């Protein structure tokens, strides 16, 4: 039963990593950039929700919706103002810009809201389920997280596969020059990709903040970015479904190793899992395209 609980609990964590991974995948798909400022953007939108819900007694849902709107604006603005000028320059430049942005967001949030650990109310019960006398490490709040993440992943999948705008976004990312010639408004779609990613990030932030152990603070989401990135890389960076599978795999493996080997060296386990996956599939589990080779 302990093993089963480790798996359940690990999977629940995995859905959280998947939520962050989804945002990274969206940006990767639109601009081929790994957004290292994602954690900072999630932090800011979550602070917005926290400010409304905790400081101004608004409902959870008001906080969530306003956070999503804030994400939409923030994501679009970041792409337009900061990323656009470096998008076609040397490839590492957007990475450094994103790192700089992360520091600015963390410093700015600290200036506005202070460097405290703030807690965020969970919307549903946190009490773990029981089967007779046996505790099952799952609760209504985690169920809400799982459902939300699955819904987001499905929506993104449908967006890309079934809608004209999704098709254009794929075209814009796949080959911007040709897409532009075909009349696709590439530049607007890239902005849209970033804005959507920040909206997904905003939802993820509010979901995560309600889970005990997470605090709304300027550095509160730093660690999650790395885990989300790892999940996205395992999944193949291009695929929303891959992000979810990558997150689940990461969550479960880490929890089981924690329980049975040691909880001192989690990051070492992340490294080993990444190596194990990538040595077999150098482009992640769910990448469809061939490796560009001879």
């Amino acid at each position: 039963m302990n093993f089963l609980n480790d798996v359940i609990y690990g999977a629940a964590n995995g859905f959280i990593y998947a939520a962050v991974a989804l945002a990274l995948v969206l940006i990767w798909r639109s601009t081929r950039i790994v957004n290292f400022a994602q954690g900072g953007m999630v932090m800011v939108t979550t602070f917005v929700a926290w400010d409304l819900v905790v400081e101004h007694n608004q409902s959870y849902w008001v906080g969530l919706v306003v956070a999503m709107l804030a994400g939409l604006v923030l994501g679009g603005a970041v792409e337009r103002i900061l990323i656009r000028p470096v998008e076609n320059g040397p490839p590492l430049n957007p990475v450094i810009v994103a790192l700089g942005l992360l520091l600015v967001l963390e410093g700015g949030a600290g200036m506005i809201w202070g460097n405290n650990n703030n807690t965020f109310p969970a919307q549903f019960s946190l009490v773990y389920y029981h089967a007779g006398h046996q505790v099952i490490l799952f609760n209504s709040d985690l169920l809400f997280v799982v459902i939300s993440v699955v819904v987001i992943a499905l929506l993104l999948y449908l967006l890309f596969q079934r809608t004209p705008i999704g098709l254009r976004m794929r075209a814009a990312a796949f080959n911007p020059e040709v897409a532009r010639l075909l009349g696709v408004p590439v530049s607007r779609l890239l902005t849209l990709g970033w804005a959507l990613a920040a909206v997904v990030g905003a939802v993820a932030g509010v979901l995560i903040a309600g889970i005990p152990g997470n605090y709304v603070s300027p550095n509160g989401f730093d660690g999650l970015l790395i885990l989300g990135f790892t999940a996205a890389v395992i999944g193949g960076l291009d695929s929303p479904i891959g992000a979810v599978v990558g997150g689940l795999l990461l969550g479960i493996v880490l929890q089981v190793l924690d329980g049975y080997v040691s909880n001192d060296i989690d990051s070492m386990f992340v490294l080993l899992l990444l190596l194990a996956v990538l040595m077999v599939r150098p482009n992640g589990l769910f990448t469809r395209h061939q490796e560009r080779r001879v």
Partner: protein
Amino acid sequence: MADVSALRRSTLLRSLLIAVVAALVLFGISELVGEYRNSQLASVALNFCAIAGLTVLIGRSGQVSLGHGAFLFVGGYTVALMLKHHTFPNSPTTNKLFILALLVAVAVSAAVGALAGLAAARLRGPYLAGVTLALALGLPELPTYSHLSGWLGGHTGLVVNIPNSLDNVDFARWQAWICCACAVITLFLLYNLIHSRVGRAFEAVRDDEVAASLAGLSVARVQVLAFVVSAAAAGLAGGLYALTAGQVDPLSFPLTLSLDLLAASVIGGLGTLSGAAYGAVLITFLPSWAQDVSGLSATSKVGANLPTTIFGLALVVSMLLLPNGIQGLLSSITRRLRNGAAPMHRTAFGISSRAGNLHDREDT
């Protein structure tokens, strides 16, 4: 004019000249400035070692590493393990041993770099970035593993015996000398390397793997070699950190260290040793400058967070204004002066194809 043409022909002579000039300038600075500037000079020099190695890896061989702090960790702990048994502060052996310890640190980091390079040679773009990032987080965690903590000092870390100063030499100055000497040696060796056949092989692999392998190069071997060289330089920097701080612990090698080194090499100008020098100066002075600008004893929320914000803004602005780094700016200015006309904007450090790394449209 015979001398000049000899200089032009011989990389060795040229590099010797550069190294001697660099050594003299550094010595002069260290003689002129006080304690605090000397300890900053030591930081600049050790940062230079790490950044120079990283810039060769990324800019010349086209492989990205977001986790070079891992190799500093290896170098730092190697030195700490070798020097921990000698009594502080006046052990006669410490002074002889520290050079040996630095050499071993270089060797051990090079070995770890070879392992990392073997994995890296199979990976491209963000996948390589992800693995190196995980390396920077994973390796420094090892000392806290309960089965290793006795040996590696756990969370508390290890105390390092600092080599004694020479007679009549101020301690900070002595440390600056050690670090500067290592930086000059690193400069000399890397300069020769990038101008040798090996350096040209790095670039050939970076520019076009297929062409390089058709030309008879073993792409994987070249890539692993680049990682080895780069890790060795970073290991030296880590060893110097251990010697100057007198202590290492897992938290001394955080992810932000790796990211700072990366930022320094990009802002300095990727692939060039002079760019690495600019980056080293920048990364050493920028944080303390940001702290000065925002005023000491930050008592408010705004004041406390201002240095972080300024540092972040500096990264963003410098990338927006100087897409090719400081070195790119300087070389375009010299070119303009020389040609009297505005030159073409060129991508100075063609990090191309494979290095497309974090940003490669072609590969979809």
